[in-house]
């Protein structure tokens, strides 16, 4: 929808609450029973506030206009009424109890994850999400899509380039697209186990009514049963460092049949990846694969050109580690060190290629690392 037509429609949208959500003025009703309950609670409290505001501000503005000295008002001298004080203490209490009852019901319901039919583990990383389907044996990382990444100047050198200034406008779902989406079956109760690998993140899909902190070292849970096939988008909702604004969440909710197909395809792909890890790779293959792994996982901090942002994010270029003993390099990437998180969730081939890339790109002269080296170092 164009800006102009939006500006025309926006005032009309004020008329009905159903239209509200379409133009981004109100909370989404969502596609789960929880998100519906939350929406209803939100609207109830909102309308209660509107009624109270009308009465209270009505009285105040009536007084402001009527009881003016310029209109000859003479000040009354009353200044106490125990009756009034008791009345305007008790009435709010009654209203609050009326709100607390449905709120408690919804809260107890949304915290009960016991009826789940399947479980997905979600791990936050600086600045991407990892999704594990433990029963299906599927595990993958979900990064900000390249289309968005290429059109946002997260690098200060690019800030003034013309293409970046207008780049955002040319991308579909700018900042709300990922390179690999989470896939869920429709009409299925799903339990999300949410944790983090480094700092606190927060996994939020507004349409699901699910928003839960991902705490390092602890596991939180939430659940959703999506009743409508579609694509749903969200973002990390807890400040998690530099690229907090650039770790979106995209979920495809598909039919149960399509979900089964997707699972089979993913399982075949991970079997192929496991097989490739047993082979010996050529340096040029490692370098070309390593470049893309580097750009989606490492460049956020260490920069595309390996210059880093010292002293927080060390440079790769001329790095002692990247030019030194391979075992030390592998150890840091696998287990992290200080502000550097662990990357053990990546496959052996990905790790071997990215470490080889780091050791041989940017003018570095380190050794080549094979998937088998990673396997034995784990």
């Amino acid at each position, binding site marked *: 929808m164009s800006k102009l037509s*939006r*500006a025309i429609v926006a005032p009309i949208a004020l008329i009905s609450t159903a239209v509200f959500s379409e133009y*981004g*003025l*109100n*909370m989404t009703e969502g596609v789960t029973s929880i998100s519906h309950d*939350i929406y209803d*609670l*939100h609207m109830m409290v909102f309308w209660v506030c509107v009624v*109270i505001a009308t009465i209270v*501000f009505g*009285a*105040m503005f009536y*007084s402001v206009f009527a*009881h*003016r*000295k310029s209109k000859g*008002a003479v*000040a*009354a*001298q*009353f200044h*106490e*009424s125990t009756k*009034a*004080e008791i009345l305007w203490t008790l009435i*709010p209490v009654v209203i*609050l109890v009326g709100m*607390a009852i449905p*709120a*408690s019901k*919804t*809260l*107890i319901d*949304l915290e009960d994850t016991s009826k789940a039919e399947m479980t997905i583990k979600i791990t936050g990383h*600086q600045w991407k999400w990892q999704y594990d389907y433990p029963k299906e044996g599927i595990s993958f990382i979900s990064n900000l899509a390249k289309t968005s990444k290429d059109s946002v*100047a*997260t*690098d200060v050198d690019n*800030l003034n380039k013309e293409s970046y200034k207008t780049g*955002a406008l040319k991308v579909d*779902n700018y*900042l709300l697209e990922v390179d690999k989406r989470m896939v869920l079956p429709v009409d299925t109760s799903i339990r999300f186990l949410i944790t983090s690998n480094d*700092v*606190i993140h*927060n996994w939020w899909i507004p349409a699901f009514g699910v*928003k*839960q*902190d991902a705490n*390092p070292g*602890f596991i939180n*849970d939430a659940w959703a049963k999506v009743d409508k096939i579609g694509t749903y988008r969200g973002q*990390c*909702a807890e*400040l*998690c460092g530099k690229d*907090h*604004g650039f770790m979106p969440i995209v979920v495809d909710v598909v039919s149960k049949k399509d979900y089964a197909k997707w699972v089979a395809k993913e399982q075949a792909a991970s079997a192929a990846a496991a097989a490739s890890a047993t082979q010996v790779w050529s340096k040029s293959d490692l370098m070309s694969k390593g470049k893309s792994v580097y750009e989606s996982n490492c460049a956020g901090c260490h920069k595309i050109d390996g210059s880093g942002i010292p*002293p927080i994010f060390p440079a790769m270029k001329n790095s002692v580690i990247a030019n030194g003993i391979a075992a030390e390099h592998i150890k840091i990437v696998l287990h992290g060190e*200080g502000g550097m998180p662990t990357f053990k969730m990546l496959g052996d081939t990905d790790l071997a290629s990215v470490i080889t890339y780091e050791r041989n790109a940017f003018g570095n002269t380190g050794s080549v690392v094979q998937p088998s080296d990673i396997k034995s170092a784990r």
Partner: protein
Amino acid sequence: MTTATTSHDDHHHGPEKGLMRWVKTTNHKDIGTLYLWFAFTMLLIGGALAMGIRMELLQPGLQLMEPHFFNQLTTMHGLIMVFGAIMPAFVGLGNWLIPMMVGAPDMALPRMNNWSFWILPFAGAILLSTFFMEGGAPAFGWTFYAPLSTTFAPDSTDFFIFAIHLLGFSSIMGAINIIATVLNMRAPAMKLMDMPLFVWTWLITSFLLIGAMPVLAGAVTMMLTDRNFGTAFFDATGGGDPVMFQHIFWFFGHPEVYIMILPAFGVVSHIIPTFARKPLFGYSSMVYATASIAFLSYIVWAHHMFLTGMPVAGELYFMYATMLIAVPTGVKVFNWIATMWRGSMTFETPMLWAVSFVFLFTIGGFSGLMLGIAPADIQYHDTYFVVAHFHYVLVTGALWSIIAATFYWLPKWTGKMYNEGLAKVHFWWAVISVNVLFFPQHFLGLAGMPRRIPDYSLQFADFNMISSIGGFAFGASFILFTYIIVDCIRNGKPATARPWEGAKGLEWTLAPKAQYHSFNTPPSKELIKSESQHS
């Protein structure tokens, strides 16, 4: 002052000349002035950072800065406004007004008073200097959640910790001083329930400060040892818990919210009766409501943490306790409106700010009630809805009352009148632009825009642009504000001792420009009664 409080002492106690007057001063008015100018300077610095934030958010895409620098701006904006602007401004108002209002010559502990002010510029300078350090300023939000603020933070964080410690010392000493002044220096004829509401609200605020600031000091000390000495308070790999940081922080943080708003309630409770020419309605219920809010503020902290994975029983408790706060807060609003009701009102500048405070603060109160509903908070949490909420209570609440107080008592501070016409222009400019700035942020939050992001997807573009334009206009209004204040000090027409027709209070019995020592002999019972705003 124990033996000879006779009048011939007075002329020995004028201010010293030159710069050393301000360095060495132990006078409550001088120190109040220092606090207010310091707070105003920090307000302008914090405001400049906010302009940077709004400029980056004017359009989608990153135009001006890297995300890391954006995070530094949001973090430092919050810290500077909370610890550098709002809190010192209220201590400044307390310093200026409390001795005058309780019929005392000065604060009870004048040398400590000097020290608690002079810590501030150093703490502020340390905090600001982090911008120029390697790795930049703190970039983890003003709530500095671990482990982003410990394991993953820039080196400058240790300077930030030291600055917080200093600011905490200053606040605690200020609070002790106010308690000692109110309880020991009050005119003998003034009973507690004769005290003006600004004195009451500050007395209660002082107890909040003494209770809350040491907890903050504990939190940053644990951060310091986690960062430098190998402890693991907030690190799960060492047996700690990052969520414990949030419990400790918000055990400070929620009382802190009321530290910034209770004195504002006090200010408004002076201005509305004056311009309604009517006694304050429900004085004793105002006192009890303030005390109940203060008590409740200590037992609701985890409503900032509904998404951290608390047990459901904990969430229910914190939701109920939070909703209860609406009751005493409502009582206050009803009392203000009952004070206006059937008054004989005029709308000089202080009254305009006070009435708009009641209106806009209450909007912030409504969104606060919505946020308190735990299930709904799932959708509001960490979005622009929260940003809109706390700016309505802190800008159009706390800051509004500070500006209202400035116009209301400026004649007593300077002995001169400000330009009423210009001040009204400034009011309408500020009140319109602040709503253009913050009201659309409610919509942004409900539509799903997270807070603390430097760039956003396109459906948020329109409201962000409106908000930014409002922000620039609101920022510019402070240029006019500065001019009005400086113009009043330099060229203002002489004020009378009681420039407002309906004003009551001991401060108005002093000279047009209040004398250097407020009351060398305590005011009589009759004077206290006749100057009471509530009988």
